[in-house]
C-alpha cells in the first residue's frame, strides 16, 4: 500500500449517497463560505483587527475529511483555520466573537483568527506558525495510542508547510510508532505569495509519503465527495491500527494570502477562472442537482438557514463586550 501516491477518483454514484449526509456536507461548506465572506467584509470595514486568512474555495477539504471524524477525534489546524474549526463542529458565535477580539470568544479575545481552539470538539488549535501543528498532532495520537482510546488525530497543512522540517520529523515519528495520524495537505498552489512549484522539490506532496513508508493519496480537493470517500477509506485504515497516511488534496487559493494582500503575484483572471469553473460549492450543487438527489429548494433552504446563523454570529460578535484590561494577566499560569 505504500508505493506511489494513489490518485482517488470518486467511485460511489451521487445518487447512492445518504441524503442527510449530502445536506450536511452542503451545510458545512456554505457555513464556511458565508462565515468567511462576513469576516472579509468586517475586516475590510475595520471592525476586525490583526490578520485574517481565508479558506474560501477550499471548503470541500475540511468538510469532506471532518465528515469521517467523531467529535472525540483530534484535529490540528493552520493559520487558515476557520473552515476546519467550523467543520469540526465549533460554535459560530464564539468563533466570530474571537475573530472580533471579544471577551465572549473562544479564547476570551486572547487568540484571534489565527489562534482559535475548541477543545470540547477535539479542535486542538489553529496555529500561527506554518507547520506548527504536525508534531502536536503526533503527540495527541501518541496519547490515543497509550490510552487505547480509538481516537485519531488529523493535521491540516499547506503545500508550503510541507517544506518545514517538522513535516519530516512528524511523518517519521508517526510512521516509526504506527500512530493514528492523518496528514492532510491542502495544496492550494500558493506558499504565501510564492507559487509552490518554484520552491518545492516534488509536484505532488503525496509522493513524499514514500520516504516514510506510509501510503500517500491524492484527491481533487474541490470535489467534496472525492475528499469524503478517500478520507473515509484512510480514516478506516488508520483507525484499524495501521499507522499514518498522507493525503494530498489539490485545490486553489481563491483569496490572497491574507485579507488585504495586494496579490501582485497573479492575475485576477486566473483566480476568477478557478472560482467560476472549479469551486467546490458550485460543483457540488451541479452534481446533486444533476443526480436528482437534492432539489434547488433543498439547497436554498439550507443556504437561508446558514445565512441566518451567520448573521446571528456577526450580531453576537458586534454586541459582545471587549475584554477588560484587567484580564491581561488571566491565564498566564494555571
Amino acid at each position, binding site marked *: 500500500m505504500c508505493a506511489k501516491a494513489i490518485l482517488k477518483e470518486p467511485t460511489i454514484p451521487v445518487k447512492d449517497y445518504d441524503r442527510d449526509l449530502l445536506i450536511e456536507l452542503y451545510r458545512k461548506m456554505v457555513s464556511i463560505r458565508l462565515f468567511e465572506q462576513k469576516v472579509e467584509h468586517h475586516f475590510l470595514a475595520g471592525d476586525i483587527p490583526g490578520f485574517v486568512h481565508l479558506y474560501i474555495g477550499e471548503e470541500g477539504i475540511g468538510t469532506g475529511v471532518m465528515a469521517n471524524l467523531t467529535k472525540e477525534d*483530534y484535529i*490540528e489546524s493552520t493559520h487558515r483555520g476557520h473552515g476546519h474549526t467550523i467543520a469540526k463542529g465549533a460554535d459560530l458565535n464564539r468563533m466570530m466573537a474571537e475573530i472580533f477580539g471579544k471577551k465572549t*470568544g*473562544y*479564547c*476570551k*479575545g*486572547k*487568540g484571534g483568527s489565527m*489562534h482559535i*481552539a*475548541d*477543545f470540547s470538539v477535539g479542535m*486542538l*488549535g489553529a*496555529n*500561527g*506558525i506554518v507547520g*506548527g501543528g*504536525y*508534531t*502536536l*498532532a*503526533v*503527540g*495527541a*495520537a*501518541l*496519547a*490515543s495510542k*497509550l*490510552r487505547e482510546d480509538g481516537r485519531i*488525530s488529523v493535521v491540516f497543512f499547506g503545500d508550503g508547510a510541507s517544506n518545514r*522540517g*517538522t513535516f519530516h*520529523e*512528524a511523518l*517519521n*515519528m508517526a510512521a*516509526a510508532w504506527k500512530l493514528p495520524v492523518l496528514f492532510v495537505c491542502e495544496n492550494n498552489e500558493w506558499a504565501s505569495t510564492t507559487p509552490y512549484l518554484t520552491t518545492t522539490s516534488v509536484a505532488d506532496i503525496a509522493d513524499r509519503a514514500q520516504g516514510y513508508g506510509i501510503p500517500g493519496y491524492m484527491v481533487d480537493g474541490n470535489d467534496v465527495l472525492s475528499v469524503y470517500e478517500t478520507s473515509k477509506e484512510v480514516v478506516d485504515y488508520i483507525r484499524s491500527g495501521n499507522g499514518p497516511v498522507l493525503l494530498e488534496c489539490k485545490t486553489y487559493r481563491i483569496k490572497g494570502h491574507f485579507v488585504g494582500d495586494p496579490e501582485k503575484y497573479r492575475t485576477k483572471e486566473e483566480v476568477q477562472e478557478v472560482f467560476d469553473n472549479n469551486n467546490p460549492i458550485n460543483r457540488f450543487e451541479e452534481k446533486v442537482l444533476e443526480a436528482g438527489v437534492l432539489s434547488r429548494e433543498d439547497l436554498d433552504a439550507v443556504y437561508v438557514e446558514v445565512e441566518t446563523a451567520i448573521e446571528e454570529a456577526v450580531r453576537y460578535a458586534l454586541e459582545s463586550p471587549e475584554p477588560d484590561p484587567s484580564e491581561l494577566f*488571566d*491565564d*498566564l*499560569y*494555571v
Partner: protein
Amino acid sequence: MAETKKITFSQATLEAMQEEMERDDTVFVMGEDIARQGGIFGQFKGLPDSFGSDRVRDTPITETAIVGAAVGAALAGMRPIADMHFADFMLVCGDEIYNQMAKVHYMFGGQKTVPMVLRAPDGLINQAAAQHSQSLEAIFQHIPGLKVVAPSNPADAKGLLKSAIRDDNPVIYFEHKALFNTKGDVPVEEYFTPIGKADIVTEGSDLTVVSYSNCLQTVAKPVAEMAEKEGISVELIDLRTISPIDKDAILESVAKTSRLAIIHEAVKQGGVGGEIAAIVAEEGLDYLDAPIMRFGSPFTPVPFARPLEQAYRLKPEAILEGIKRMF
C-alpha cells in the same frame, strides 16, 4: 527531624519519576537513549523495568518532534515528560517551546493547560565544549508562560521534579550534569519542593548572595565560606526557581543585608543576574549600601581545551575579591 537517606541527585530524580508514574498513569517519559540506555547520565536507569517501553519511550533523534509531541500529548490529557539529552538541544526546537508549549494556555484563553516537563541537562562538564555545555535558563526566563527550575541538590531535585510533574503549567527542569553523581540527604517520606520559592541556605547579615544549580555548590558556597573568614556574614539564597522568580525572598534578604551579589554559571551578559539586579534596583534601591555585583561566565561560547575551559570557569577567589570591594 524527618528521616532521611543519602542518595545521588540522579537517584533522586529517578525516585520522583517512579513515584509520580506509579501514582498517575497519564505520566510518561520520552527522549533519546532513555529506555535501553537508561539516559545518557543514567538518570532513567531501571525505569522501563517498572513501566515498560511504551511509557518510557526511546524516540528518534528529533528534538522538535519530541517537544511538539509532548505538547500534543498534554493537550490530549496526558502529563508527558520530555528529555532533551543535553539542554543545548532545546535550541533545535525553539518554536515548539516558545510558540507552542509556552503559549497554548494563554492564547487559547485558558481552555487547556499544558502539564508537561522538559528535562534539560545543562552546564559545564568534562570539556564538552560549545554545544554540550551551555546554561540557557535566561532565554526561557524571558518567555511568559513557562516555569523554569534548577535544583542544586538531591533533595530539591526530587521535590522540584515531583512538583513539576504535578504542575499544570509547562516546566523546564534544568539539571546540571555535574550534579548527577553528587550525594545528599533526601527525606524518606513523600515531600514536594514548591516551585517559585527560593531557599535560604544560610542566614547572614552583611551580604546577600543569590545563586542556583551546581554553581551554588561549587562556587557560591566556597565564596560564602571564604567571606565568613574575612568577617563578612553571608546570607546565601538558592533561587531554585528561575521563573517565576521569588522576588520577595530576594528583596527581604537585601533589606536585611544591604548588599547583593549574584553568582551563576551562565554568561553574565543578559543573564538571570541582570534580572535580579534590575528587580532590586527598581524595588529595593534604598536598601543598598553598595552597588550590586553580578558574577557569571565570560561572554564567549564554552571553549574545549583544558586551559581555556579553566579560564572560562568561575573562580571563587576572584569573586571574593569582587565582593570585598563592596565593603
